[in-house]
């Protein structure tokens, strides 16, 4: 079985982003999706700290610390890009103007509940940032994650046990071994890596999965 590494997964997510889409890529692995978007198509990347039309990382000599993404990495702006304040930026998000948001997750439920901001550890200092706004704002929320934790527990679950980021907000989950649609009807497998079977996925997740 050929598990997808992060690059392969990012490339796979990129394939589902159509030309003309307004897209927010979350901090971490989702940021890598940008590397695989077709250069000859107009896809509009938003960064919630006030930038639309985000371009690739700058050359080291062009780094400008007043031109960063939400992960505080230096970026560039494309011709046709624009700057705006946080009020307008989150209006874009909350108002449903962003087509696709790609996020990481600790857990996703089969109905699309998302947990990606807090481990629930009692001594953790919580930090939420824009996670909850991104989760409920975009028209489609894609999650990128490994299917299993390091200790082998499924992160696709019947019901999240970690503190929630948003309810019923995720529409698709891209994992290293399969891709799932989630929602009111539960989870459906829409793609598997070579060598993976539905039965194996059921065994790994403990869920009654069906193919879409």
């Amino acid at each position, binding site marked *: 079985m050929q598990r997808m590494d992060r690059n392969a997964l990012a490339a796979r997510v990129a394939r589902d982003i159509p*030309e*003309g889409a*307004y897209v927010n890529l979350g901090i971490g692995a989702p940021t890598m999706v940008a590397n695989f978007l077709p250069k000859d*198509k*107009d896809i*509009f990347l*938003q960064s919630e700290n006030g930038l*639309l*039309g985000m371009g690739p990382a700058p050359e080291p000599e062009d780094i400008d610390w007043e031109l960063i993404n939400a992960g505080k990495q230096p970026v560039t*702006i494309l*011709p*046709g*890009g*624009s*700057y*705006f304040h946080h*009020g*307008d930026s*989150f*209006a*874009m*998000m*909350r*108002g*449903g*103007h*962003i087509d696709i948001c790609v996020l990481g997750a600790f857990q996703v439920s089969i109905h699309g509940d998302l947990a990606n901001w807090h481990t629930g550890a009692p001594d953790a200092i919580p930090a939420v940032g824009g996670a909850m706004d991104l989760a409920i*704002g975009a028209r489609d929320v894609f999650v990128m994650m490994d299917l299993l934790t390091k200790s082998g527990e499924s992160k696709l679950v019947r019901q999240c046990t970690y503190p929630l980021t948003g309810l019923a907000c995720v529409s698709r989950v891209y994992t290293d071994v399969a891709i799932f649609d989630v929602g009111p009807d539960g989870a459906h497998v829409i793609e598997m890596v070579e060598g993976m079977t539905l039965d194996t996925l059921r065994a790994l997740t403990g869920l009654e999965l069906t193919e879409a």
Partner: protein
Amino acid sequence: MINKIVASMAEAVADMQDGASIMISGFGDAGAPAELIEAVIAQGATDLTIISNNAGAGETGIAALMRANRVRKVICSFPRQAASHHFDARYRAGEVELELVPQGNLAARIQAAGAGLGAIFTPTGYGTMLAQGKETREIDGRHYVLEYPIHADFALVKARAADRWGNLVYRKVARNFGPIMAMAAKTTIVQVAEIVELGALDPETIVTPGIFVDRVVAMQPAPTV
């Protein structure tokens, strides 16, 4: 390549359906998309709900929609004015419904729609007949009225210049309701005096980012980009 520029006013409004709700920018003539409204009249959609500051004056713009009897309802702050005879006649004949909204609440409700808020408590109108029947609440010693967002199927907006991604800049007080209506409608259609190359608008000074704009049409034949 994404190119939101369409060739004609007619093409820009071709899919307007009967019963549509339409936000129309402008305060007086400043910022009023008269050519787009003409195109709507020619296109034929009727039974419309118009959301605008006024209900039309004189013979053009919203007044022409009124004269053509295409409007079922108006949501506005200032319908009655010197030359609002077409609205006045329809209203007195019971042919058009009026929802009168204080101008700032109109703006705030449009903004709430654009920003995805479910409702807002606003102080404007508290204790007046325009708040009758509405939920009120005292918060920190001040009285507020609960007002709901105003969404629309279309926004018709006038701006000074646009590029093919739909980024907009405005001119003077013709800006008025344009930026907030562009954010609140499902489909935003903009008429501009000038179409410029992508990248020609300074990213610091773009007022409406292209994400809020669906179609752009030049007021006169403009160079293709």
